[in-house]
Every structure is written in C-alpha cells, then in structure tokens.
C-alpha cells in the first residue's frame, strides 16, 4: 500500500536552504518539507530546536525515483511514499569530499563534519585527542565545536597554501558579519596550531586509529590521536537533480535567476548549485520559495544578496583549491572504493568509469559512488557517472509494487 501525499510546493531537503524555501513558499499554499534525516535542520542545525514552520515535515524520507513528472517515490519509515507536487524545490545540500590515503579506512578516521555530526548525535569526545585535517573553513568550525565539547584538538592541518588562506581571510573583512565570525573562530582556537600547507599522508593503527602521519610535502611526523576528523571540502549532492533530468555543469546544478533548473517547475537551491555556505543557502532558498509561490517581486529583492553570496562562493573555491600532491596520496594497495574494497592499483588498470564499474565494481556498493566517485574524479579526472533509479539503496518492498523486469536493484 502506497502512502500518498500531495502538496502545492514540495521541498526536498530540510537544511537551511530547504527551510528558507519552505518558509518563503508558504502563502496560502500547501508546502511539504521532506528529509532523509529524522529531524529538520540539515547538518549545520543538526540537533538544534528550530522555529516551527506551517509546512508539513516528513522525516526519515528518502526519495529514490521519479515515476512520472509531478511525482516522486520515496522510502519512509512506514513504507513506500508517493509525493505529488505542482512545484518542486530541491535542496539536497552537500557531502564531504574524502580522499584516499593509506589507513583512511581505519575505524575512528571520520569526516571533519562527520565527527561533528556524530558528537551532535550523542557521542562524547571529552578528553579525546583529535587531529582535524583536510581543507576549507569547515575545519575551523569543527575544531571550535570539538574544543567546546571537551576534545583535545592536537592541530588543524589545512592543505591549502598559507598565502591563499591569508588572502581569503583578508577578503572576509569586506563582509563584516563573516569577518566577526572568522575572528571569533580563531579566538576560540587559541592554543591549537593551525597549519596551512599540511595534510595527512597516512593514518596509522591496527584495527583502529592510533596516530596520523602529517606532511608538508617534505617533512613527515606522526601525531598520536583518538580521532582523525578529515574532509577535503564539500561536494554538491547532485544525484537527485540529475535523476530528475536537471542539467549540471562542473558538478553543480544549472539554475536561472529564479533558481529554476532546466526542468520546468523544478527548482534547486543551496550547496547543490555551488558550495557557498549558510548565507547563499538561505538567500537561494528564499528566492526559489517566493518564485515557486508566485511572488517574483519578493524574490527579486534578494538578487543583490545572492550576488554577494556567490562572490563569496567563488573566493572560497579559489582559496581552498586542492593541491596536486594529494593525487599521490594513495599507494597501489590503498582502498579507494570502501564499499567494494577496490584498490587504487585495480583502478589504475581501468581507462574509464564504466570499465572500472564492470571490472572492479568500484562505485556499485551501497553508497552508490557517493564517497569514491568524487575521489576517483579528483585522482583520475573522470566525470560523475550517470544516475539511475533507485538513486539510493531501498528495500525490495519499496520497488515491488510496480517493479519492471529490467529495473535493476543495486546490491545492498
């Protein structure tokens, strides 16, 4: 039995962008807000109590296919759900970029945002030694958060060059809000070394992490720790927009002035249109919400703020561009695809993503290439592969009602 829900405006993704979109769309319209997490807030507001919105929140709901225009199939705790809409706003957010290096599959090597999410979900890091590594402003936010929660942050290793990070920091002075935020973060970091031009070369341990080897390209040193919180920036989640046929370019969803994608009545907002942080997500959400709700004048008022947010996004991308040395981190025996345990050596023997899939099953496990895909893209220059339904692993029962003989179900 399908559960059917109908909305004038359906928002998928309840992070800041989706919440802003839902709030702006509410004007005599029925608005549904669906998210695969049990509670709204996305990653940045995870576990926080949010102001109530009149929209209907559907938690624990994973969209996995589109049977026809105006409808989505989702897996909900109660079973398969059919979501019907006139206008659809996608706010799928971003995930962390993970790059393979020897030992990165050891337990207690987590994402930077990953460890933060786990702490927000009830994990205590009091007294635990943590090395924060990778790239981007998220590292500072995570380190500050971990300190506040009693962790001993040994150091922050930022792969980007000092002069680029410094230029980015100075650029923040042009937007006072961000400058105050950044100086606040740095103040909270007192005593924690921040090392630009430094990255993890290996995670060490037997069965679990004991230390991380850090390098600046010439010197290496081992730092003992309980956790390595490591993420190399963010990757826009474009799987759902692409499943719906939305055009992407350079890894981000193409949108017009109203945040509408190349598919009519389907909008996209937030990190999926380009990683830019909270301000960009909020302003794009508002614009799409107003536009989908039939209030273009209200939307237009936010165009200048969006221009500013997009300029910030470009400077972010320039400052924290990944250095070429990171491509030499994996050894031949280092696993690249964690789901299918595919080594780098086996990938090097393939000349295309398709060959890699067929010969090694790289990207065909439960995560459907969400972790190894961006890593392989960086290491080998391969573009993202096509998305086919189901876009996430689902129970057979969710497909059973209308399963076609040729509909392949990913192994889970």
């Amino acid at each position, binding site marked *: 039995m399908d559960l059917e829900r109908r909305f004038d405006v359906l928002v998928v993704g309840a992070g800041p962008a989706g919440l802003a979109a839902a709030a702006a769309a509410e004007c005599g319209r029925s608005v549904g807000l669906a998210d695969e997490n049990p509670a709204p807030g996305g990653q940045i507001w995870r*576990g926080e109590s949010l102001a109530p919105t009149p929209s209907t929140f559907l938690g624990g709901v994973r969209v996995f296919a589109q049977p026809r225009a105006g409808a989505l199939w989702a897996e909900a705790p109660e079973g398969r759900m059919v979501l019907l809409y006139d206008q659809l706003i996608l706010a799928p957010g971003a995930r*962390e970029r993970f790059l393979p290096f020897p030992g990165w599959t050891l337990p207690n090597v987590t*994402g930077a945002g990953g460890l933060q999410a786990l702490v927000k979900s*009830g994990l205590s890091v009091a007294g635990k030694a943590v090395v924060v590594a990778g790239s981007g402003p998220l590292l500072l936010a995570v380190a500050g958060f971990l300190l506040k929660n009693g962790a001993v942050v040994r150091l922050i290793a930022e792969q980007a060059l000092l002069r680029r990070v410094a230029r980015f920091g100075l650029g923040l002075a042009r937007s006072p809000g961000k400058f105050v935020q950044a100086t606040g973060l740095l103040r909270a970091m007192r005593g924690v070394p921040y090392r630009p031009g430094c990255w993890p070369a290996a995670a060490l341990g037997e069965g679990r992490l004991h230390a991380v080897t850090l390098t600046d390209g010439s010197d290496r040193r081992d730092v003992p720790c309980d956790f390595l919180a490591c993420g190399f920036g963010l990757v826009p989640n474009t799987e759902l927009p692409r499943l719906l046929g939305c055009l992407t370019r350079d890894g981000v969803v193409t949108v017009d002035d109203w945040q509408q994608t190349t598919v009519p009545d389907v909008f996209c907002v937030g990190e999926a249109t380009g990683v830019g942080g909270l301000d960009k997500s909020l302003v794009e959400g508002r614009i799409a919400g107003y536009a989908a709700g039939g209030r273009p004048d209200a939307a237009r008022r936010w165009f200048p703020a969006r221009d500013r947010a997009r300029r910030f996004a470009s400077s972010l991308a320039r400052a924290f561009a990944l250095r070429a040395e990171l491509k030499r981190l994996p050894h031949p025996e280092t696993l690249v695809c964690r789901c299918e345990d595919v080594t780098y050596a086996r990938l090097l023997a393939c000349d295309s993503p398709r060959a890699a899939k067929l010969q090694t099953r790289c990207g065909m496990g439960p995560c459907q290439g969400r972790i190894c895909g961006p890593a392989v893209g960086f290491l080998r220059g391969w573009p993202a592969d096509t998305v086919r339904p189901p876009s996430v692993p689902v129970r057979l029962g969710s497909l059973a009602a209308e399963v076609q003989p040729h509909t392949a179900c990913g192994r889970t």
Partner: protein
Amino acid sequence: VPETVAIRVDGREVLVMPGTTLAAALLGSGVVATRRSLTGEPRGPVCGMGVCFECRVTVDGAPHRLGCQTFCADGMEVRTDGP
C-alpha cells in the same frame, strides 16, 4: 536527571541518553567497528550523515540499518558482525 535508554550491542547492555543515534552510542561505548568489509577489514562511522553506509548494523534482526540515522530505543538489539 533525564532517563537513559538501554540497548544491547552484540549481547552487551549499553546505556545512552535519549536522542543518541546508534552510531554515536556504539562509538561512545568503545565499539569501534560497526561492520566488516568485503575483505574483512573493521569499519566504523565516517560521514555521520547517511551517505557512506559504513555505520550500517543489524537492528532487531533487520540488516543494513544506518547507525547514524537511527535513534536508540529501549530494548533495541544491535549486532555489528554483519557485512
């Protein structure tokens, strides 16, 4: 004092605060590996947000439940010996 939630992890009782996810509960109670990989490596939570599937565990007999997306509930039986 808020009530605690009691779950069983591989037969051992683990007490957590309400609102704790399985992934956080397991890591916090010293269970570092939530599953074994294809080649037998121990794996633990990575992304914390339902993307990587490394924290999948068996909950009350149902395999492949994402530990980071599942809140602990009294009496849950969790197993970490799955693939």
